[in-house]
């Protein structure tokens, strides 16, 4: 696993993606098609059928002009109708012009109901079904439920529903996967990762993946088939009369590709920056809202507003850049196609004036040319627009690829029975700061152990090692005789519970918060855990007991109450090892004493590791581990350590006790 991957989460400064990377990202996106195989095949088949009705329209219009209005007889010798039109032509061959018009009208009405012939395609309608804003984030949300069809009518409705479902399943598979990986990131990575950025990646980047499938697999295929069919039809009917025109029509697609392709690298860069700045905006907002108490208390309101305003402005500006690029491309492309169309117009009218072609032929030919030029424009644009999706998906795959705790080959764990042994363990942070040096320690499973030391001594780092939040840079930890380095992080957490000092509760009921750690816990088990932590005292007083909801992040409880609830949640898991970070810091002495007694009682059957500063807490421990500057300086019972005349621990205690 590559751990050296450097990234800047604030702005993805590396906006260069080379072509190989683009292709890799595209092929990885295709990996997700496996999950929607059935839908994919249905969608493809339906889409293939849906291009056909549109091909017939010019020919029917030709009949209206030539045979109805101009009242000419069918002349299939010079300009033959395509084969699929023949059954209909044979049917109406001998009818009078008004009768022909009647049949044509009937045909149109049937085709309208079935395929929505001559009506705007369902895809076009869907583009703007929900109001969206003028920045990348709001537009992405629409993308997650986009779908389309070249037809309308009943067929279009079915195809549309089908493809929306497919888009949603693809997008959802990716974002659920990303969410899973994000929660499994290593602790050191999570410390650096901004929440707003993560939200952006899950909510607004991931939804752009399905479009890649459409833009690479389905749409170009359809367009090319349509174009090929139209050119074939042109050749079939007009190849004899105006071969130049067929060539001209065929040149439209390569021409537009040629003029737009050079912009793709630029497009990628612009889109990448656009998304990065959107993520920054999200982040600013999340940070100030989630820490609102601090923002208000410190008088940071104006500062936060200005920060948000600036980054929001920046993200709008970045989005405008993408609009500008699109406009430039449209202008270039339109100019190119219009010139081709003008040449086509001259060729066609030449023949109309000569009398070789009828006015109906003019309708067919100009219709065909117009359709082809639209197709060519679309194909040229796909590659450019794809850059947006690639830029977004890269941000998603970045975290899917990022090393997580679950990576690697591990063997499963046997429950810890006797002891944990740390042998020559050192740990240094990714930025090089050394937190632990050569730690050797033996902990047995019927002890209450206090980890003590001045701030910055490495207490938390030592405690983080036990549940595998971090892994030793050097040395080895043994659970009984199992090597820590060979164990799966998930398994380790089945054996070790860690209770944080910050008390993160979810905005749901107390019961739900407790069940989070052990979904199978019974009410009795919950009450027992709350009793040990002393949380029962205040839960009993709440109107709905354990079903009382707690506000955002548990804000309606006091800090001490939250702390006791967090401890209860940790104990509820019933693991052989429990690590508590400053469990008594916010408690008054009376509550503290009760809790310590209960914890000591429950540590008879397990290992309880406590990080603590308060003497009253420390004294209760069976074993005190005293750390200084990343090293274990002294280990032993309180009385034994106090007996050492020049002991470091003794000095530490005396400082705390004596004014």
């Amino acid at each position, binding site marked *: 696993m590559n751990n050296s991957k450097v990234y800047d989460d*604030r702005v993805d400064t590396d906006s260069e993606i080379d072509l190989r990377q683009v292709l890799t990202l595209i092929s990885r996106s295709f990996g997700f098609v496996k999950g929607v195989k059935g839908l994919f095949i249905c969608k493809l088949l339906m889409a293939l059928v849906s291009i056909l009705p549109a091909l017939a329209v010019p020919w029917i219009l030709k009949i*209206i*002009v030539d045979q*109805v209005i101009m009242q000419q007889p069918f002349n299939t010798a010079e300009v033959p109708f395509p084969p699929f039109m023949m059954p209909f032509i044979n049917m109406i061959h001998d009818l009078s012009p008004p009768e022909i*018009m009647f049949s044509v009208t009937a045909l149109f*009405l049937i085709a*309208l109901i079935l395929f*929505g012939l001559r009506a705007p395609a369902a895809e076009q309608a*869907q583009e703007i079904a*929900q*109001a*969206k*804003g003028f920045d990348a984030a709001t537009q992405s949300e629409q993308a997650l439920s986009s779908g389309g069809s070249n037809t309308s*009518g009943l067929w279009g*409705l079915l195809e549309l529903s089908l493809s929306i479902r497919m888009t*949603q399943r693809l997008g959802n598979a990716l974002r659920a996967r990303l969410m899973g990986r994000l*929660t499994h990131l290593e602790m050191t990575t999570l*410390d650096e990762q901004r929440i707003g950025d993560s939200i952006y990646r899950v*909510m607004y980047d991931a939804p752009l993946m399905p479009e890649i499938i459409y833009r690479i697999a389905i749409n170009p295929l359809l367009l090319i088939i349509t174009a090929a069919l139209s050119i074939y039809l042109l050749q079939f009917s007009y190849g004899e009369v105006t071969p130049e025109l067929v060539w001209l029509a065929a040149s439209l697609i390569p021409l537009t590709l040629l003029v737009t392709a050079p912009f793709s690298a630029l497009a990628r860069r612009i889109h990448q920056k656009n998304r990065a700045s959107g993520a920054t905006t999200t982040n600013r*907002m999340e940070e*100030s*809202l*989630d*820490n*609102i*108490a*601090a923002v*208000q*208390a*410190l008088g940071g*309101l104006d*500062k936060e507003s200005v920060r*948000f305003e600036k980054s*929001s402005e920046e993200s709008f500006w970045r989005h*405008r850049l993408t609009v500008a690029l699109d*406009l430039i491309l449209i*202008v270039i492309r339109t100019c190119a196609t219009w010139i081709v169309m003008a040449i086509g117009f*001259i060729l066609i009218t*030449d023949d109309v004036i000569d009398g070789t072609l009828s006015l109906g032929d003019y309708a067919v030919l100009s219709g065909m040319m117009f359709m082809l030029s639209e197709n060519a424009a679309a194909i040229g644009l796909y590659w450019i627009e794809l850059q947006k999706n690639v830029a977004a998906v890269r941000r998603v795959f970045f975290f899917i690829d990022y090393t997580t705790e679950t990576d690697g080959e591990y063997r499963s764990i046997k429950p810890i029975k006797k002891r944990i042994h740390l042998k020559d363990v050192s740990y240094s942070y990714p*930025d090089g700061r050394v937190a632990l040096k050569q730690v050797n320690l033996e902990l047995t499973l019927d002890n209450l152990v206090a980890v003590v030391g001045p*701030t910055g001594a490495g207490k*938390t780092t030592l405690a983080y090692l036990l549940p595998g939040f971090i892994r030793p840079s050097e040395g080895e930890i043994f659970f009984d005789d199992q090597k820590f380095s060979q164990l799966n992080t*998930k398994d380790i*957490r089945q054996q070790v519970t860690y209770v*944080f*000092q910050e008390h*993160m509760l979810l905005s749901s009921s107390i019961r739900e918060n407790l069940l989070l750690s052990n979904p199978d816990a019974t009410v009795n088990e919950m009450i027992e855990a709350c009793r040990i932590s002393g949380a029962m005292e205040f839960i009993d007083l709440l*109107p709905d007991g354990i079903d009382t909801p707690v*506000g*955002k992040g548990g804000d*309606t409880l006091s*800090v001490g109450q939250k702390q006791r609830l967090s401890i209860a949640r*940790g104990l509820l898991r019933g693991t052989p090892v429990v690590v508590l970070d400053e469990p008594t*810091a*916010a408690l008054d002495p*009376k509550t503290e004493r009760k809790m310590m007694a209960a914890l000591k009682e429950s540590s008879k059957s397990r290992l309880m590791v406590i990080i603590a500063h308060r*003497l009253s807490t420390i*004294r209760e421990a069976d074993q005190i581990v005293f750390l200084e500057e990343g090293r274990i300086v002294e280990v032993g019972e309180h009385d034994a350590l106090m007996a050492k005349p020049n002991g470091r621990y003794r000095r530490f205690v005396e400082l705390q006790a*004596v*004014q």
Partner: protein
Amino acid sequence: MTNLDTKEALDIRAIFPLVWRCWPYYRPQLKHILTYIGCTILIGALFFSFWFVADDLIQNKIGVGEPLQPLQAQLLMLDKSYLTGDDESKRLSDSQRKQVRAKVVILTLTFVFVVFIGSSPLNYYQVWIFQRVNQKLRVEMLSKAEHLSLKHHSFSRTGDAMYRIYQDSATITNVLQWLVTMPLRVMGVIIIGCITLIFFSAWFALPIFFSIILSGYVMRKLLPVIRQKSRQSREYNSDLTSRIQENLAAVRVIKASGAEDIMISRFKKESQNALDAAFEMRFYNSVLLLLSILIGMGSFIIAEYFMATWAITEKATSLGGIVALVGYATWNIGAYQTASRQGEQTCLQAWELSHIFSVAQDLTVGLKRAFHLLDLEPEVTEPSQPKIFPVSIQSIQFESVYFNYQKDNPVLAGIDLSATVGSVTAIVGGTGSGKSTLMSLLLRLYDPDHGNILVNGINLKEMSRETIKSNVAIALQQNVLFALSISDNIRYGRDDLSEKDVHNAAKIACADGFIADMPEGFSTELGERGGKLSTGQRQRLSIARAVLRDTPILILDEPTASLDAETEQRVMKNLAIWGRDRIVFIITHRLSTIRSADQIAFLDKGKIVEAGTHNQLMAQLGPYSDFVTAEVGNTPTETNYE
């Protein structure tokens, strides 16, 4: 089909007040909007009239060889030989037709290049205008959300506010387009189309009328369903945003509890809900559009049948010979093409209209959600004529202060307390006794339900929150750090202070030592929520932040809980010197800190049960002395400690 909550159902009239509310955001851009609309109309009119003329030229003149109208000849700069003259049945020669064609091609290309290229920056202009509108709303919403009282924030989810600010606010950009310009345009097209068609034949009024009535009926039936689905979709998405935000903010607990899989399965469920709602909304939308297409296009196709048959019989058009520029006196091929295009356009407006209406549903839902946030009244209201904070502080008094977060659950039940300048007051009490809440009132994060807080005898309610905040500093128990550099974190909210001030404050808080050890010292960037630092280090940054503000009132909420004894002593000593001409409150459990206070207020169940110095209170043998005994009582061997 619908189990619509009737109370929530807003009818189409509810749109107008919403549009009106958007006006202040559009107002500053009015100049730009008018310019934009003017340009758009101009270009639209140019294109319309261009095709009206070009159609006739291409079909009748080039295609069939009819002579030109006088005006057409002038426009194309062609001589008299191209005109009808006296001979009604005159036809243009092949070379003349080619001449006309050459002129038309040149004219068209010039027109397209000039007008098209000239008009494309309009699109960019439009994006820019709407972004400015959205920016104003967004910033206002966030700032409003931030100003709401903490009471509100305790009960609402961060993700919900985010969704409103981000997604719901974006709907404002669509108001002008979908509720004003598009309907106007559609009405314009319908009117022009109807007039043109009726010029061709009065009979066309019939299918137009028919399709408008029928699609009106369909809309009445379907729009409420769409609106309900749209609201659902937005609510579910907002829940989902909350879920992600919470999961990520609490990710460490989730990891520690091994609850990753539970969280993911909940995420998947909520995500699916959101997707289902989005799907249903789009489905009903498509059904509506399909029906209006069938109605509109159906009546057009039938009308087209008549146009074609009339063209066969060369029936006279109602247009007659009025318009000199076009030659559609009778139904001919050009007339058919023009009328048919007009008819198609007009009938498609039925589709456009229902489209506009369905988008309007989503717009109203989104706007309502956005404005809801703006409409929330802050519980802490600013006085209309705020008094200034006393220049030299003398005293602070709490007079029978009551406060609760939820009804029937009082947190403070009659607090009386006073503190004078130069004193340190320790607030002591069991967990949940209301200590932190009491201090939040001093910051006016909340207002008391009853009772007053007075500074030098002036009620806190008569001062603006802004003034209070610049005179009261607090080091919070939950040490919130932002993803900024260390120095910016200390300076947070006070960018006017110099680097030297920051260093001094860090020194008083004993934070200078570990900051110097960081790779980039004061400019080291902190990770999410200050994750890189230990609790003790964060605590000291918090203290430094409060000290730096140099305010007459300082509140320290459990400032030293995570500091070791040595550091605590140093910090307290520094603070004692620093606080000589100020009023300091300390919430704490540590005896060594409590004992050094000038006054101790002992809180229990929202009341101050005892107040006085350590020695006084110990002599009273009341709750405080019980508390102290509990702390030290179990250590009889260390009497020197007490």
